[in-house]
């Protein structure tokens, strides 16, 4: 007969072994990216990353760099819980590059339930993470999948938009409901993104693969309103985008419709709900709100499309609640990806053509701080998969922009910049 009573020894066994059971079920993963590049840039003397007026990360000349060393670490348990940490290093490039930076870009806990009988699944996330906006930066460590540099839209997301918060996402799976589409809706409540909008105002839209690290401050070009006695004299030299200044919770919501095997359409809205006249140690609250639309679509076996559009506003005020910076902004891109397997008979070659349009409209009357700009960019990328993990890429970018603020430092208001990049990227 089976004896079902629990004896002390059994209890000891349970107490000792149950935690071990939890450990057993854990799976540790280390992923990442190594990205080595040589660039030839025809632009301003200095790129935007070092406070220059160029729209590219680096200025004029030839540069060698490890453009990204990223590690994407995770541990996941069988019960649906996982913990993630993403670290990125940006070693100093030759030429006028910024100094080496290394740090954390995301760290969060995630729980994903199994779908229930009705086909609904809940996912929650808590920690430091990107709100789900970019359709380009979905490779490990937030690297851009199809191009070396992200679009202006997502370069900005990587620079100024990051949240400490919690997200809940509900997905209705079509597979279980006899539908060909999945629907999902997510809502995030967050803090620590109050100064977002400052860098977009002061260097405009830019193109690179650089993400701001947690606790990192970023520089921007000089302009007359920063001088003593002027309206922005109180602004710190560098902007620290991931601060909580006013204890007000912001939010992001997003919905997505995904048609099986074809593509997806998504829309979202972000509002940091910052108090615009709040200032702490030279860091202002910027009330930044925008909506974003996106689609990924498989047009044929060889041809697919990614497109995104983002538009919003930002407001920063003096302590007397007068508008100091009041901007509207928009950026959108359409990218076509072509797989050459029909012609080359393998899946190793892929090309991407991306066209972009971007603008900032300055609505305030602050002297010596003109934030207006508009421009277009075009990027051509060809990538070859050398082996399972190694990729070789060549990428050409041209940006044509009109930015009156460049005159403050004696740079041409109208500027056409070009960049050639050759890269080898290794994904782990």
């Amino acid at each position, binding site marked *: 007969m089976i004896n079902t009573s629990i004896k002390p020894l059994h209890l000891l066994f349970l107490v000792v072994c149950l935690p*071990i059971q939890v*450990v*057993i*079920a*854990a*799976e*540790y*993963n*280390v*992923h*990442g*990216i*190594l990205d080595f590049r040589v660039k030839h840039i025809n632009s301003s003397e200095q790129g935007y990353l070092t406070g220059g007026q160029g729209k590219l990360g680096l200025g004029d000349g030839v540069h060698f760099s490890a453009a990204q*060393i990223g*590690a*994407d670490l995770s541990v*996941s348990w*069988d019960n*649906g819980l996982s913990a993630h940490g993403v670290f990125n*290093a940006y*070693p100093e490039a030759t030429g006028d590059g910024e100094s*080496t930076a*290394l740090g954390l870009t995301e760290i969060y806990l995630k729980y*994903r339930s*199994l*779908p*229930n*009988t009705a*086909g609904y*699944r809940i996912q929650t996330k808590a920690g430091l993470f*990107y709100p*789900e906006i*970019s359709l380009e*930066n*979905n*490779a*490990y*460590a*937030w690297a851009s*999948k199809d191009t070396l540099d992200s679009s202006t839209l997502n370069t900005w997301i990587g620079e100024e938009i990051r949240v400490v918060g919690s997200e809940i996402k509900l*997905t209705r*799976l079509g*597979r*279980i409901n006899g539908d*060909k589409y*999945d629907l999902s809706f997510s809502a995030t409540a967050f803090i620590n993104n109050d100064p977002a909008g400052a860098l977009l105002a002061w260097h405009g839209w830019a193109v690179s693969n650089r993400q701001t690290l947690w606790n990192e401050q970023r520089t921007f070009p000089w302009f007359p309103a920063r001088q003593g006695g002027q309206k922005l004299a109180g602004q710190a030299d560098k902007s620290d985008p991931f601060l909580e200044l006013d204890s007000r919770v912001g939010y992001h919501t997003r919905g997505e419709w995904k048609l*099986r*095997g074809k593509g997806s359409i998504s829309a979202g809205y972000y509002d940091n709900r910052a108090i615009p006249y709040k200032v702490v140690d030279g860091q202002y609250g910027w009330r930044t709100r925008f909506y974003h639309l996106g689609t990924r679509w498989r047009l044929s076996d060889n041809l697919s499309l990614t497109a995104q559009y983002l538009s919003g506003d930002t407001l920063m005020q003096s302590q007397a609640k007068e508008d100091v910076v009041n901007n509207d902004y928009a950026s959108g891109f359409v990218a076509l990806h072509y*797989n050459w397997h029909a012609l080359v008979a393998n*899946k190793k070659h892929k090309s991407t053509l991306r066209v972009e349009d971007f603008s900032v409209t300055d609505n305030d009357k602050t002297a010596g701080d003109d934030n207006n700009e508009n421009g277009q960019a075009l990027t051509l990328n060809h990538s070859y998969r050398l082996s*399972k*993990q190694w990729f070789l890429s060549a990428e050409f970018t041209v940006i044509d922009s009109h930015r009156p603020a460049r005159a403050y430092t004696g740079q041409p208001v109208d500027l056409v910049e070009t960049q050639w990049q050759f890269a080898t990227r290794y*994904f*782990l």
Partner: protein
Amino acid sequence: MLKHSLFFRFFVIRFSLLRFGLPIFSVLIFTFASTSVQACTKEDPTCVQVRVNNVKNQPLANMVVYLEPLANQAVPQQNKTVEISQHSKSFIPYISVSQKSAKVNFVNKDDITHHIYSADSENKFSFKIRSGETDSSAHFNHAAEIAMGCNIHDWMSGYLLVVNTPYFAKTDLQGVASFTLNELGKYRVVVWHPQMRAKNNRMIIEKKLSNTEITTFTLQKAMDDIPVQKSDDFDFISDY
């Protein structure tokens, strides 16, 4: 300065899996292929054939056909182990069939982890399966139609049809499924496919089977699209 060498070493060491469990090293796998039942011939007195045609009267392959005895014919229990593999982030085969109580092995042939599940209330199961592992923890002891997914890769979709008979097969390119029966007599002949647009995704004929007459089914409606178990070709997607 970055300590490149140390960082790099840390970086390239892949802690892929911590496996303290007891790995099963020797599993004998009897693969159930789509044509597991040997095509029999008319000369065989207990050979029966079933043909499935599409709405345009053309032969339809990969349709599941099974025969359930209606006259108390004795049916043997098959000892076949069904293998459902996860390969290229898809279920292969898309449709598996097993006799109830048969062993079902899930085999992960990818280099990543999958999280296989069924959300069906009566046949709920889920397990994570690491690269290269075989899992046979799920038991299927009654007839059921089980839709399976992967909770990591939502596009993955597979079916396991559990039947109460050893007589099951998928139609070949000629749309024909053949069975060598132990006993002739009256059977329920069922054609099933998850994308068949018919009540319960089935067509049913009950009749006395013989080796001289082919039972033919012709679909009343066109088949629905079979889901494409395909994602982006890029292998290094982070789960953002």
